[in-house]
């Protein structure tokens, strides 16, 4: 069976809600039925076959080709299966994702992996603000799974994050790890201002010395036993994080945010 492929025919003026096109909702549907589904775009409803050329039949393996940055909610609450996006993705990529795999070859917009629960999200390009964060007003961001971003991420990555891993090969914007409850964010590049702002628990693992707020206290240099295990868990990834030369266990530990609970930590490679 070949992958179920949606090839975008033309870019719409309004944003498109792609949430119906996920593996578990398309399961057991015939191609004609899938084509007859409707997608919300602005105030209009568009038939799927009006917007996309549809090929293939494997609903558990979906490819979205020619994807552009106004296709929102791709992989919303994905519950198993695999979605590959060729091109860019809009906002709310992998929103509330439960399990499965979601890969984007280009960039992703705001709120990628927002309130993600489990699974694997890979973004080959850059990600916008609020990666793995909570919706405005909600208190729980990402609760599990792994996000890999090969490019840079915007501001407030991991805001209210509760569990899981966010791996960033590039740079992270301001407020990275803000209001984190737990989990791990690893940044190979540079980080912006207000790193870990109001974080309660959790780990920010950095390759470069950040500009830290006064509410983070230096706990000294340490060799930490959990780091080799953490790096070993990255080995299956197609990433610089899986490279053995990237691994380290010697870090400078900063505890914070002391203006909050203060049980979080910033670990900087030595």
């Amino acid at each position, binding site marked *: 069976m070949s992958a179920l492929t949606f090839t975008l025919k033309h870019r719409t003026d309004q944003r498109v809600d792609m949430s119906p096109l996920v593996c578990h909702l398309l399961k057991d549907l015939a191609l004609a039925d899938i084509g007859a589904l409707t997608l919300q775009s602005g105030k209009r409803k568009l038939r799927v076959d009006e917007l996309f050329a549809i090929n293939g039949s494997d609903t558990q393996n979906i490819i979205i080709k020619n994807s552009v940055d106004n296709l929102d909610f791709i992989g919303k609450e994905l519950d198993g299966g695999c979605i590959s996006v060729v091109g860019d993705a809009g906002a709310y990529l992998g929103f509330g994702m439960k399990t499965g795999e979601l890969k984007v070859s280009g960039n992703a917009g705001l709120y990628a992996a927002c309130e993600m629960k489990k699974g694997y999200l890979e973004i080959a390009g850059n990600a916008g603000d609020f990666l793995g964060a909570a919706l405005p007003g909600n208190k729980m961001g990402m609760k599990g799974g792994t996000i890999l971003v090969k490019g840079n991420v915007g501001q407030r990555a991991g805001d209210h994050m509760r569990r899981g891993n966010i791996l960033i090969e590039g740079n992270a914007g301001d407020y990275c790890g803000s209001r984190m409850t737990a989990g791990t964010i690893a940044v190979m590049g540079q980080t912006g201002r207000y790193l870990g702002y109001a974080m309660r628990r959790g780990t920010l693992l950095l390759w470069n010395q950040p500009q830290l707020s006064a509410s983070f206290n230096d706990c000294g240099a340490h060799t930490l*036993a959990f780091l080799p295990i953490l790096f070993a868990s990255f080995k299956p990834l197609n990433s610089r994080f899986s490279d053995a030369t990237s691994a380290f266990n010697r870090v400078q530990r900063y505890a914070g945010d002391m203006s909050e609970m203060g049980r979080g930590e910033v670990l900087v490679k030595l």
Partner: protein
Amino acid sequence: MIINGVTIDATFAEAFPMKATRAIITAQNEKWALISGQAMTGFATSVIACGCEGSIERILEPSETPDGRPGVSIMIFAMGGKGLAKQLETRAGQCVLTSPTAALFAGIDGGIRIPLGKNLRYFGDGFQVSKQISGKRYWRIPVMDGEFLAEATTGQVDAIGGGNFLVLAESQPQALAACEAAIEEMRKIPNVIMPFPGGVVRSGSKVGSKYKTLGASTNDAFCPTLKGMTKTELSPEIESVMEIVIDGLTKEDIAMAMRVGIQAVCDLGAQNGIKRISAGNYGGKLGPFHFHLQEIMA
């Protein structure tokens, strides 16, 4: 059956169901992993009075351990799951948490989950940190030498305890030399431990006693000094008997360990004073698992 001049008795070892778990201890080097493992499995020779039976299963190469440091795998056996969990936690807390540079990991992924570092974390007094990595939860507990890393749980599985065989020799040194040779080979078999000191027990017991408060007492039928005053199992030339007790995860594991052990003893043969191999057979009173010596060596 006679192998290299050693008579293999037509009897069987009687074993009983137990619960078992395995943990992996790593440390800065093999020396400290061994120290920690030995401490954790100290005073764990017999469930009769120790609460559990435990020993180091084998030494692990850095490539075999979760954190890439030298380590040991230890196994603990007890009569019930509750007792096993209690023993594991107490011993981990007093012997591994306290041991310099040591870290503690699960050695069994399946089975019923029992606490390993799950409750030890409270030693961290609120400064402990949890990390969930690849579906496993670890606790980082701040201690004076750095951090004690412990996996939250390990697996408890059904197992068998009390597999055994007796080495009957013409002298005490010869019996001990044969047992040492057997233990060396048996330690290569996975999923088994020989919990007595050095793997060998010189005070094999029988079920019951003339004293009502005791559940076990000396196995007088195999005591060489009682040859003339009890219903002995020993012929006149036997001067010393030693026993090797084996606990294992499955019947096959124990049978394999018994086979290589008995073979190592028989390789020394009658010319080294080894006369017979027998087993602790309690007439079906001790347990449902029977390891027939001649079948094992066939």
